[in-house]
């Protein structure tokens, strides 16, 4: 693979000293690429992101084993303040705006990692990607729609000049058209800003469309990896994550239908 910006080697993550969520996860994120992390609920995707961004700590989680290397520096168990200043910003699942701040104030919080530096240019850049935010810039975030908020939190992260952006379920609870628009913008940000992106998604179809490379997680382990093209053609991925697959539509109408057994089990 190309030179990796982020390298995760065989990490284990334990919450509250007893609950093991990741059991030896390894993955590589090449510079300036989009890597998507697929898998069902509880597979450990979000935990993987939090292990990278340092947000495990406030949730009483810990990387107990393995190493996370970012540009060659070890990251495991460092504080989020330090990690964000290295250029790694996570966009949390479920949007999490600052409800009582206006859109523009929300965006200004994104400059926390380089406090005191001018930020006008960055505001313009964010408004350029998300024109809706410009129209709503004086509105309280608590009163904005889901799509606007998703754009807001992504714009807020962009304000920090991230080198590595961790996006957790940007499509959550949004209308298909809005999802498409958001993914188009993610692809543009990756292309134009040279931002490396790790994309965690339930919506495997659209994630594989813009990602260059993908990993499939299950039960705290990586069970499959490959370029987006190979994953899209893989019969297991097709059946379990893309719908349809081997049986094809109508498989359930046949008198005797049985599900494929996962090859990796």
């Amino acid at each position, binding site marked *: 693979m190309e030179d990796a910006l982020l390298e995760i080697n065989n990490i284990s993550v334990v919450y509250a000293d007893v609950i093991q969520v990741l059991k030896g996860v390894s993955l590589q994120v090449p510079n300036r690429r989009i890597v998507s992390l697929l898998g069902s609920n509880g597979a450990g995707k979000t935990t993987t992101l939090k292990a990278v961004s340092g*947000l495990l700590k406030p949730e*009483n989680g810990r990387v107990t084993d393995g190493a996370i290397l970012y540009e060659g520096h070890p990251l495991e168990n460092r504080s989020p303040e330090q990690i*964000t200043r290295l250029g790694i910003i996570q966009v949390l699942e479920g949007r999490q705006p*600052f409800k*009582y701040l206006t859109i523009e104030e929300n965006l*200004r919080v994104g400059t926390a990692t380089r*406090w005191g530096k001018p930020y006008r240019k960055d505001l313009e850049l964010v408004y350029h990607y998300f024109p809706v935010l410009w129209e709503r810039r004086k509105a309280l975030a608590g009163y904005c729609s*889901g799509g606007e908020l998703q754009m807001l939190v992504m714009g807020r992260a962009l304000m920090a000049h991230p080198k590595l952006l961790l996006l957790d379920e940007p499509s959550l609870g949004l209308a298909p058209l809005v999802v498409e628009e958001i993914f188009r913008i993610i692809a543009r940000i990756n292309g134009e800003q040279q931002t490396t992106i790790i994309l965690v998604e339930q919506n495997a179809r659209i994630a594989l469309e813009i990602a260059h490379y993908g990993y499939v997680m299950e039960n705290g382990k990586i069970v499959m990896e490959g370029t987006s093209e190979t994953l899209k053609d893989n019969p297991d991925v097709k059946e379990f994550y893309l719908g349809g697959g081997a049986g094809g539509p109508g498989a359930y109408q046949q008198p005797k239908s049985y599900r494929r057994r996962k090859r990796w089990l």
Partner: protein
Amino acid sequence: MDFFIQLLVNGLSVGFLYGLSAMGFVMIFKSSSVLNFAHGELLALGAFVFLSLHAVVQLPIAWAFLATLTGCFVLGFLIERFFLRPLIGEPLIYVIMLTVGLAAMLRGLLLLIWGGNLRTLPDFLPAWMDIQAGWLRIPPVYMAAILVGILFLVLFGLFFKYSAQGIFMRSVADNQRAALSLGVHVRRVFALSWGIAALVAGMSGIILGLMNGISVHDLSAVGLKVFPVVILGGLNSITGAVIGGLIIGVLEAFTGGYLSPSLRDVVPYIALVVLLLVRPYGLFGLVEIERV
């Protein structure tokens, strides 16, 4: 009518001081959800430090004033650093109990150093502050309270609305996890809010001391009065804190003037109960923005 207006003015100026001290209290609560039971002691501490710097060390007024405010800020910062930071992540009740302990400790310390007697601050306010408009007279202390109250309100309003640090502080109050994910230095925000709260408390302590004399017990009792003020105004609204302070101040003045001075301390709580029946989140409390 003259009497009414005179009471109103007195009430408002005391109210500004209540509002100011409540503001510091609200700031700590907003950023870290901690109820600071040691607030009254911080007030008393400010007044005593000022007294010592001025009367014992013989610093000129302006310098003593600045030094006291700086000292209070640093003290608030240190309290957060040494007493509260180790408790981050522990259940909130531990932290609140810690502030109760801190209150006892500070009060003991104050009594130990300065004793329990009533002291008076030298009157240093300039003569132009003594306002005499016909029958209405505003004594300099009351004028100072009003001026300082307005000044700090405007300053804090601007700070929270426009400065980056102010916006970071609001973001932590709003959604701590999201603030953390963007690299906001949450612990620094806590420390800063303690520093500012102690500074404002010290400030109101000095002026209250000018008004009624300084005694450990009286000034730390004002810390208790902060509770009806902030609950009235809404626990997480800074404007609410000030308006709550004004209402309580005026209520006290009217009760003292028209009913009986001994009822002064009771009426704020009665008002509080009545208001909470009508608006459980206080006058300016955040009405939770809920997405449906």
